[in-house]
Structures are given as C-alpha cells and as structure tokens.
C-alpha cells in the first residue's frame, strides 16, 4: 500500500536520510528505532509527502505519492504528530472533527455531515475521551491531548498511520492502550502503521517489524527477535544492553546496563 523506494533526503548539504527502502503492507506495524538525529522523523515525513526526497520515490497504492491531490493522500494516510500546539480556544470535538476535512464534498467549504460527526464521536470514545468533547484543548493534560491527536487520526478513516513518538507524553497504562488501539486497528481493518519510537520494549511487544536507523541509514530490518539483539543495539546506540525474553509475552526485553563508576557519590 505504501512503499519507499531507495529514498535519500538532503537538507542543504546534510544528509538526513540515505538510501532507505521500506514496504508498508496491510496489518503490519513497523517500528523505527534509533538515536536522536538518526533521520527517523525525516523518513516518516517523507512517507507522508511532507518532505520531498532528493532521490528515490514514495509509492502509494501503485502511483507516485506526489501525483495525488493532497486530500486523497490525507484520506489514506494519517499522521499522529508528537505534540499539538494549540494557541486558540479549540474544543476537543472541534479538534477531532478536523480529521474529516479531506472528506468534505466541496473543497474547504461546508459543514460536517452526520457521518462525519459519528466518526468523530466514535474516535473520541475509543481513545477514552468521553466527556471531554466540550473541553478546550489547551486545558487538557499532555496525555489527554496526545489521545485527542490519535482520535483525530482515527477519525480520518485512513488505512495507513504514521506515528511520531505517540507514547512520549503518556503514562504507563495509556502507552499500552495507545499501541493496543493501533495494533487492533491494523489487525481488524487491513490497516498498517509506521511508528517512530524511543521505547524499544513497546516496539518489541507491538510491532511485526523493526527498522534500526543510525546517521540517516537503515542499519538493520527484520522481526523484533532478529533486530533487538545485544550486538545490534550496542552498535547503534553505543550502549551496553541486556536482552532477555519478556516473562509473559516472550517478546525481546531490553534493559540498558548503566555504568555508574564515573558518577561521583551524591
């Protein structure tokens, strides 16, 4: 459904992403892991058409991404960004129903249909924001706001989700809820998700495939068991880790080994 073919992105003279290929297929969750500045977000934004690759191309449903009208891309690909920066008094409902813009009958004008309203209410319900519809976005906690961003993405009815650190502001319980929602959406409705995350263990639990990135390049790609190894993680993060199996799920569990020697006693 969505494919990156050998894409390279240069910002001025700096190479942000180099020679990356990625195939996003139905019911797959792909996690992208790597140190800060590895080009993860650049790759994600290239998949959405927000960044235009210097070489290579992105293919959506058999055609180059840039050959589609913006609204058609938005009907098929939804983005969950890191943080919503809301400077006007916008209610949660108004925010979430923004996800229906791409489906408006007339360009940019008009009011939402009954179906649009139902879809927005449904998205609010499954992200556990019931009762928050009339609250203002800038009065919510970081976690609630992040869930509203997810609700808006779900309201688009897109089949492909691109998530940029979706769990960064969430507490433990909501981290799991968030990824379980994405996971079940992918399993049930032939959707797919690409998740940029720093949480290696959540990636191990919820994804089918993991891409390890370093300095703009894809270092390794495969199943969590293949990729989340002590050797590869040490190579990419320059950090000693222990990898064992999660006692319940059996997924790889990564524990950093902190060398405390150099830290003076408090």
């Amino acid at each position, binding site marked *: 459904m969505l494919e990156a073919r050998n894409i390279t992105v240069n910002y001025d003279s700096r190479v942000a992403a180099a020679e990356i290929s990625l195939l996003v297929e139905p019911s797959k969750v792909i996690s992208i892991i790597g140190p800060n500045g590895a080009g993860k977000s650049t790759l994600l934004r290239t998949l959405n058409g927000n960044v235009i690759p210097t070489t290579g191309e992105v293919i959506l449903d058999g055609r180059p991404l840039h050959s589609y009208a913006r*609204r058609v891309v938005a009907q098929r690909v939804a983005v969950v960004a890191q943080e919503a920066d809301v400077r006007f008094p916008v209610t949660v409902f108004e925010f979430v*129903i923004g996800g229906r813009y791409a489906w408006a009958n007339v360009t940019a004008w008009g009011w*939402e249909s009954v179906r649009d309203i139902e879809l927005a209410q449904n998205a609010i319900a499954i992200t556990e924001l019931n009762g928050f519809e009339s609250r*203002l976005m800038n009065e919510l906690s970081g976690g609630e706001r992040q869930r509203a961003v997810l609700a808006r993405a779900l309201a688009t009815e897109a089949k492909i989700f691109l998530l940029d650190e979706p769990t960064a502001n969430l507490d433990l319980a909501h981290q799991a809820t968030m990824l379980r929602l994405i996971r079940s959406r992918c399993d049930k409705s032939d959707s797919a998700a690409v998740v940029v995350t720093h949480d290696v263990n959540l990636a191990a639990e919820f994804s089918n495939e993991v891409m390890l990135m370093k300095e703009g390049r894809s270092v390794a790609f495969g199943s969590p068991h293949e990729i989340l190894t002590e050797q590869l993680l040490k190579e990419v993060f320059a950090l000693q880790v222990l990898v064992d199996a999660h006692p319940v799920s059996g997924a790889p569990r990564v524990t950093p080994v902190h060398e405390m020697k150099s830290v003076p006693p408090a």
Partner: protein
Amino acid sequence: MTNPRHNRSSLRRTLFVCAGLFLVLILAFVISSILGAQRLSFGGALCALTGKANCSLSAEERAILFDIRLPRILLAGAVGTCLAAAGAAYQALLRNPLAEPYLLGVSNGAAVGTMTALVFFGAYEWSRPVLAFAGATAATFLVYRLARGRAGATPERLILAGVIVTTFLSSAIVFITTVMDATRIRSFTFWLLGDLSGTTSNLLIVAFLAAVVGVIALGVNARALNLLMLGERDAFDLGVEVGRVRLVVFAAASLLVGASVASSGSVGYVGLVVPHLVRLSFGSDNRLVIPAAAIGGATFVIIADTLARTVIAPRELPVGAITALIGAPLFVYLLRRGAASV
C-alpha cells in the same frame, strides 16, 4: 468573562448569530445617522431612511442625512468589515491572536501605496486602491518572510517583524510627505490615523466591493483556516493545500486592507478587537468567526466614528484615535495573558 464551550458550531448556529449581529448593526446605523453636530429627530431620520417622502425633516436636515452622514456611515461599515475580516484571517493563518493589519504593518504598506498614488498619479483616482493593494501585498509578504524562523513564526517574532516593517514604511511615509506641499500635510496626518470624512463615492464603492469579494474569499477557506490555526504541518497532513490557501487568504486580506486604507487611511486595532470579542463569545470556528467579525466590525467602526464625530463636536477626532484607545489596552491584555500561559 465566560467562555462558552460549545462542542461545535453548525450552519444554523452561524446564521442565528449573524442575524443577531446584523440587527445590532442596523440599530447602530440608525442611531449613528441621527447623532452628530446637528442632531436629527429619531422618527424623522427613520422615516427618511426607509424611503418615505413626507418626513418631519427640513431640506437642510435631509441634505445632512443623505449627503454627509449616510455616505460616511456606509464607509465606516465597509471599512470595519474589511479590517475585522482581514484581522480574523491573519490571526488564523499566522496562528497568532495578536496579528492585525495595522500592527503587522500591512496598513502602512497600503498607506505608502495610496500616498504614492496621490503624489504621482493624483489625476487618476483608481490608482489609489490599486497601489494600496500592491503596498498591502508587499508588506504582507515582507512581514511573513521576516517572521518565519526555522522553528516557524512565534507570536513575539511576528510582532517584532511587524514593528520593523511598520517603522520602515513610516519613514517612507515621512519621505513622501516632504515632497508634498505644506497645506496638504495636516490633512494627511489626520488621514494616517484613520479618517472617514474625506472619501469619494468611487472609493466608497471600491471599499464595498472589496468587502464583499474579500469576505467571500475568506469564508470559502474558513474550514481550511480552522486546520491552519493548528499549524501548517497539521493542516498539510489533514489534506489542506497549504500553499494555495495561504495565497488566497493573503490576497483576500491585502484586498480588504488596501481598499479600506485607500478610502479612509489606517484605522488601527479593528482587526484585533472585533475577532477577539467574537471568539470569546462564540468560539474559534472560522466558519462563524469570519462572517460574525465582518458584521461586528462594521458595527464597531460605525460606533467609533459616531464617537469621533460627537465627543468634541463640532470638531472631529480621527476615528483611528478612538479605535486605538479601545484596542491598545486589549492588546496589552492579550500579550500579558499569552506570556503567562506559555
């Protein structure tokens, strides 16, 4: 002040609010037409305004009403509509509750255009709105480029860019006044602060047409502006053709500001006060904010001009002095509140 927390606005609610605001506008219109240096009777004015022949007005009073007051009130309404709608659009597009044609320097750009037309093409009246539009467009482009940093335009950066453009254009205005003859300078200083007394019927028609065209152009993009208000990247992700919408909105706003400055100078703060009050009362949905600000802006400038005409009658204040007196404290309040919440 209470902040109404409606889930969403609907077409019905928008029409209801606009109808209510329109009634207030009509009321302001009628009251403004009887007040002034020469007070007219309410019944007589109402009778004449509704087109009846045998009203209790003298011939002189009829002349005051139809030849002096009515064109001026109509102009005040058109200018208010232009500036308030443009302000609402700038605020949504630039994601900045403080954005306003006057504070961004766009009004000054239009003023430079108008003055250039007056000095160099004085014989051609049409050159005034045309050059005012060109000046407003150039100033918009300039302030937008200056405000855009790597991290996007922060509110403070935008206001600073507005100050830079405003002062730069002010020096251009001073330069142009030096080449004018001394007798005209006083009327120009008055005009620069916003003056509704010295327009022509052609410019009144231009202001009206610009108001209609500009508000429609902004209105059809209101739903896209709702998303742009949350950030250009968000809007792009959700399917907005950001570049095209930005171009249309900037062009429409420049048209609105250009036409209003060409006909009446730089009336400040209308684009700040009116959209802010509308948002406070009815929420932030631009499909409601833009038409409501357009109607409310007309009411606001009509009331301000009535005060300008009456407080020291028979002498007059520039209407811009009244709007700034109301607007500047609100600006300070918004700035302080913004600084506290960041």
